[in-house]
């Protein structure tokens, strides 16, 4: 199913075009095993961008540079047209769901979910909190310790925590990889609905091409730290999938 970015429909033609929600401009960072090399990529507002590529392609690094987890050695990251390369992570308003979830082990599931919600906003957030619990199927986990939940449950809690954060850009890094197909589809449907209601911009890194095909407006591909294609056209996606699976890119 294709999604049209809402702003493309609603935009007033007299106004200057909105700056991209996120833009990587000539970003490079080499950590030895992983690297991104001179990446330039624009992410329009309310767009859902999928990024695929083999292990070690630099997909995670690309997200971490924009989310404030790592500093690039060269290049800049722009957020709504503003240079955020040196901004602290709390000012970027990008909710990041990393591969390992990074749930806080000393807090229970509920405390993790509400971590980003300020105390004085919690009452007004009750409805959203309930929606997240139901939508992600984690209502039964709220008082459980983080150590006692499964990998798939932890991924959904990490996703819920990011959705409740005060951010309009969401980065997902293999954040549904531990879910079975049925749960993955349910989470995908919930995310699509949540994205529409809350006008989120999403970047999703995944090895699951079928999932990206289903959810993303556009798919970019990376290999060996470089952007291979910023817009794998829908018609060509099946070809790309076969290339990926044939190992040409690995």
């Amino acid at each position, binding site marked *: 199913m294709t999604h049209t970015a809402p702003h493309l429909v609603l935009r007033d033609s007299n106004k200057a075009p909105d700056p991209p929600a996120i833009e990587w401009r000539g970003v490079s960072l080499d950590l030895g095993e992983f690297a991104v090399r001179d990446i330039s990529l624009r992410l329009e507002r309310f767009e859902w961008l999928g990024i695929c590529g083999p292990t070690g392609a630099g997909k995670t690094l690309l997200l971490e540079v924009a*989310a*404030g*987890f790592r500093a690039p050695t060269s290049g800049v990251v722009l957020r709504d047209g503003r240079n955020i390369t040196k901004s*602290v*992570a*709390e000012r*970027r*308003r*990008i*909710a*990041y769901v*990393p591969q390992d979830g*990074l749930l*806080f*082990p*000393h807090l229970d599931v509920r405390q993790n979910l509400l*971590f*980003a919600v*300020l105390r004085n906003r919690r009452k007004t957030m009750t409805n959203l909190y309930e929606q997240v619990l139901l939508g992600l199927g984690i209502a039964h986990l709220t008082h459980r310790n983080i150590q006692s939940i499964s990998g798939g449950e932890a991924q959904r809690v990490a996703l819920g*925590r*990011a959705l409740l*954060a*005060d*951010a309009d850009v969401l980065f997902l890094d293999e954040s549904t990889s531990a879910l079975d197909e049925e749960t993955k589809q349910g989470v995908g449907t919930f995310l699509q609905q949540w994205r529409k209601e809350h006008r989120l911009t999403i970047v999703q890194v995944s090895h699951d091409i079928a999932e990206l095909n289903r959810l993303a407006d556009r798919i970019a591909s990376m290999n060996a730290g470089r952007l291979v294609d910023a817009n794998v056209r829908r018609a060509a996606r099946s070809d790309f999938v076969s290339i990926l699976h044939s190992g040409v890119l690995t």
Partner: protein
Amino acid sequence: MTNLVFRGSLLLALSVLVLFVALFLASSLVYSGPGRAFEILARSEARHAILLSLTTSSIATALALVLGVPAAYALTRWNIRGRAVLDILLDLPIVLPPLVAGFSLLLLYALIERTFGNGFSQGPLDLRFTRQGIVLAQFTIAAPLAVRVLRATFAEVPVRMETMSRSLGHGEAATFAKISLPMARSGILAGTILVWARSIAEFGPILVFAGAVRGKTDVLPIAIFLSFSNGEIENGVALSVLLIFLGALALAGIRRLGGRLVLG
């Protein structure tokens, strides 16, 4: 060397060491028997030494933590130029001969007097040969030890956890309070016990800086020293047994808190 001979030599070394430590500790425990030890410890002068030790070492530990926790966190997280020099400087009091630490404290006062005149270091600020001086002498060793132990503890808290907290909207201070401190809690508690145990057993700096005055500055180690000096062997032994017991209790507490970082 066959496996059997190799294992035999390991076992021999371990046995000799364990036997040696067990025997020298047991010698104090069996010297006059538990009944006599309890009787001595119930006397007012012993109770005074115990209370003074508990109070001063607890205050010194609290002060060491107040400065040690932020200092250790800063040293763990910041890229400070000349870190190696800073490390050596802060570790020095731990490896210095205790008497040298005490003399250095006295010389610090001499330096202050020479620089600012007598007025600055006299009155309430003159801690020499006072109970407050005991705290300062204990703090001299306790604070660097706290920094050393807490640095290892904070290094175990993944930086990514802190960055995640910040990307969820919390600033540096809130992240420290909500993530770093709670995640380092066990290590901080274990380190606190270690620092307290070291403070209560401190002798050299106290002897030099606060003196050995019965009824005034006689914390447990000083009281033991005074007892042995005056030929009151049974008193000294009873107080030694108490310190051994407190040491064992502290080590058990650290182990219970999973003090891998503290004890190795």
